[in-house]
């Protein structure tokens, strides 16, 4: 390294998981890794956050809440370079910024739980159905569709991967885009989640506010539903909670769908039970993995990349270190597919897969019967029996899905391996 500036840049690369080629930067990154391990072990659960907030509230309530003065609202207007007309259009009455309160209502917590009854407009177009789901600001989602009281579809979007299960046909499609799904993107588009996105991306003053029975009415700018249709959303908000109670989709003045929100809540993380954002498929499910538009995922090539190459693989790779339970690391491979990549760390008889948008077909084909789901942190570990008496274990880590192919169905050994997994830096 010719200078401290170069070394600082190299260290930054090492911290990003890249191989800088500098032994000094690598040594410094290792020292920092010790810190990460020690400090990340300080766990603060969602329940503790809520208890601390409850204890803090009375102390916060003692402060005098300043009036939402016109001067402050005007500052927002000036910053957004919109006229006084805009300030009027975002207010629901003296002292109430409806748009801000609506934003706060749907962004206050980690997830939104919603139940909706979705009906067509006067011209029909589809059969009415009910949708129950969970949605996060990052786009993760889990939903169930019912028509006539019968479950017609279940879906999960997680880590950029979409899974839609049809219980009537015992089949599931896994894809990176809703365009690969038979029903298209209409099934994936949730009205309340779209409303939240529309609200957050609307320019200040871009939302018209009026009054409605029991609350307020927002008309949001034209939005695009996945699949290309443009709609206006006319949303009725509850006066007390500022949460949506009714969403009407209007296409060029024509009502095409009416969504009655029968239940909606923005919930804190500890109210989301482990496994909410997961979808267990029954053992007999025929699973097809498709790359948009409708082509099967194919393996393009495999090449060994080693530990150094794994740091620049483009996915946050997880591994068990150079050795685990007497099994040495024997190789690290990069597998390229038509719609993504995966990294496989091979130990003698045990493989650790890391993947994001696609499930490696080898893993998918090997999974036989789901055996057990174990809670783990904020998610679950799914354990399947696999061919040859092996076990396939699947769970989520930050930014990736990890699959472990273990030599047997020894649950303590499997959970021990999961506990020892760490990100390769």
């Amino acid at each position: 390294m010719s200078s401290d500036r170069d070394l600082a840049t190299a260290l930054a690369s090492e911290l990003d998981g890249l191989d800088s080629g500098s032994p000094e930067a690598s040594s410094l990154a290792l020292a920092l890794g010790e810190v990460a391990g020690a400090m990340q072990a300080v766990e603060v659960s969602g329940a503790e956050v809520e208890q601390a907030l409850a204890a803090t509230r009375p102390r916060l309530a003692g402060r005098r809440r300043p009036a939402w003065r016109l001067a402050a609202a005007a500052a927002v207007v000036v910053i957004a370079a919109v006229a006084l007309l805009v300030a009027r259009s975002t207010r629901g009455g003296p002292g109430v910024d409806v748009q801000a309160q609506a934003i706060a209502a749907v962004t206050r917590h980690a997830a939104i739980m919603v139940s909706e009854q979705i009906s067509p407009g006067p011209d029909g177009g589809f059969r009415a159905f009910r949708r129950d789901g969970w949605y996060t600001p990052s786009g993760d989602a889990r939903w169930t569709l019912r028509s006539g009281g019968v479950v017609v579809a279940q879906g999960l979007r997680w880590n950029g991967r979409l899974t839609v299960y049809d219980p009537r046909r015992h089949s599931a499609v896994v894809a990176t885009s809703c365009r690969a799904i038979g029903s298209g993107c209409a099934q994936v588009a949730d009205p309340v989640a779209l409303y939240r996105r529309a609200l957050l991306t609307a320019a200040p003053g871009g939302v018209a506010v009026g009054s409605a029975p029991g609350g307020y009415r927002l008309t949001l700018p034209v939005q695009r539903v996945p699949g290309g249709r443009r709609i206006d959303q006319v949303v009725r908000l509850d006066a007390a909670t500022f949460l949506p109670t009714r969403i009407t989709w209007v296409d060029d003045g024509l009502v095409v769908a009416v969504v009655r929100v029968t239940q909606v809540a923005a919930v804190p993380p500890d109210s989301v039970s482990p496994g909410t954002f997961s979808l267990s498929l029954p053992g007999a499910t025929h699973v097809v993995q498709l790359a948009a538009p409708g082509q099967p995922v194919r393996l393009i090539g495999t090449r060994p990349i080693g530990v150094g190459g794994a740091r620049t693989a483009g996915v946050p790779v997880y591994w068990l270190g150079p050795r685990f339970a007497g099994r040495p690391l024997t190789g690290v491979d990069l597998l390229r597919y038509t719609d993504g990549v995966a990294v496989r760390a091979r130990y003698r008889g045990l493989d650790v897969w890391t993947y994001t948008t696609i499930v490696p077909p080898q893993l998918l084909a090997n999974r036989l019967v789901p055996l057990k789901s174990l809670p783990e942190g904020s998610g679950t570990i799914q354990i399947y029996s696999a061919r040859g008496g092996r076990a396939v274990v699947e769970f989520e880590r930050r930014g990736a899905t990890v699959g472990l192919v273990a030599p047997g169905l020894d649950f303590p050994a499997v959970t021990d391996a999961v506990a020892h997994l760490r990100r390769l830096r």
Partner: protein
Amino acid sequence: MPAASDDELRFLRQRVDPEAVFRAHYPEVVRYLAMRLGSEDEARDVAGDVFVAALTGLPRLRWRGRPVLAWLYRVAANMAADRLSERAREPQPVPLPDRATEATAQQVVDADAVRRALGRIPADQQLVVHLRVVEDRPFADVARVMGRSVGACEMLMLRAARSLRGELREEGFRVE
């Protein structure tokens, strides 16, 4: 007049929603205070005070190009410094070791040694390590919170890593 940036809009939204700020940042403030004070229990004690002080002042904040999180960390750093000053003036009891298995005890020793090493490096180095390494924020975010350039934060990280490596060696860690 230019339109408000995404950062500014986020700042304005957070300013009217203190509970959202609390929920979003309480865990990382606890971890930061645990690093500064060397004690998780004390960190949890102080974290509540940090949020009361910070969120009480929230409505009076004006947009100056830095996120609400920067304000939070400023309050937390000041309270941590005050607590450390008080501690320096008072004799501290030696905590009794917990009953633990041999493996757990070793883990506790290692984590305590790391925290002791962390406690001996300067406060600004502690903060950059906390934001980038513990909270895994990109340097661009670290720079916004600390009010410095990305390059300055990278140089600070280099100094922090060297300091830390030396301190860890003093604690008996082999870092190669």
